[in-house]
């Protein structure tokens, strides 16, 4: 199962060197991400949280791992990884060409292929978030999907978004 986590530092070799945007770090000290624990290696205790390496594309040996520092504890990450998904497939609405004004197309993906979710920063589209997933080893894809960031854990755990999320209110302030 994925884990909703406060990320305080994310160092990667890709073009996006500011996944934890300075504005988030300055105002909150972290940014919320939903990570798939199946990409985590070298998980260690760091202060009251943890640090680990994270693979965006775990099937491609050419890609170096990111280094992440998180406020989630090692135990929380282990528990999340041991929690079963509702199904190994998840169906989400994909916006064509990542355009939130277009009609989303329901598309089913293997949850193991999902790397992480990131919030969509435009407050005019609260029902959108970014999903980064892999088309197996062939390609890494950043896809805008038709679901709120806070609805992701519910749909993966229960198959619906009907339950209320318990995410701290700070997330809303951040967005």
């Amino acid at each position: 199962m994925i884990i909703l986590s406060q990320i305080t530092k994310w160092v990667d070799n890709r073009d996006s060197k500011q996944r934890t945007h300075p504005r988030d770090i300055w105002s909150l000290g972290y940014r919320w991400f939903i990570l798939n624990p199946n990409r985590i290696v070298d998980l260690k205790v760091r202060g009251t949280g943890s640090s680990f390496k994270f693979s965006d594309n775990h099937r491609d040996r050419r890609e170096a791992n990111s280094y992440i520092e998180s406020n989630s504890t090692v135990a929380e990450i282990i528990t999340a990884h041991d929690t079963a998904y509702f199904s190994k497939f998840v169906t989400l609405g994909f916006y064509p060409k990542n355009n939130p004004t277009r009609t989303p197309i329901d598309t089913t993906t293997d949850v193991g292929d999902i790397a992480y979710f990131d919030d969509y920063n435009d407050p005019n589209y609260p029902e959108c978030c970014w999903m980064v997933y892999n088309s197996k080893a062939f390609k890494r894809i950043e896809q805008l999907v038709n679901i709120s960031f806070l609805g992701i854990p519910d749909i993966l755990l229960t198959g619906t978004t009907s339950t209320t999320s318990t995410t701290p209110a700070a997330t809303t302030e951040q967005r």
Partner: protein
Amino acid sequence: MGLFLTTITDWTTKRQEKYQKLLYLNYILLNTNRLCDIRETTDGHTEFLFHQAPDDRRCSPDHITCGTSLAVLRGWHDAVETSKFGTFDIFPAYDITATPVATTIEWENVAMIYQTRNDWTNNVCHMIYYLDGWKRRNVIIDENSLLHVLAEEYV
């Protein structure tokens, strides 16, 4: 996660092998762990990208439209095999007159199993499997039907 029996409506691939033309009665076993970007078609069937070699970044996926609904696909993907391994009697050197060798392979390494008309006559099947990310193998196995393979995986 494992194999599911389906019929093929359309199969677009960059590979030389055009499997759709080979299939006897259009039936094939595909592995759900190779599927990506699954979408329902208007007639209730599904289309998806099929990665024959999911661990090889050089291999682009095929586009397949098949006669199985999304709900059924989900059921197959969530199904649990009786064992992670399956044992297949593989004919050495593609020779069906030779004595088959019992070979144990992880189900997740099997990409597809199908029968041509000749296979059906000879009571054998073709199987494509991978040595993880390293190598693709195309073999003939001593199985008289696709349903029998399915039964071995789940029953």
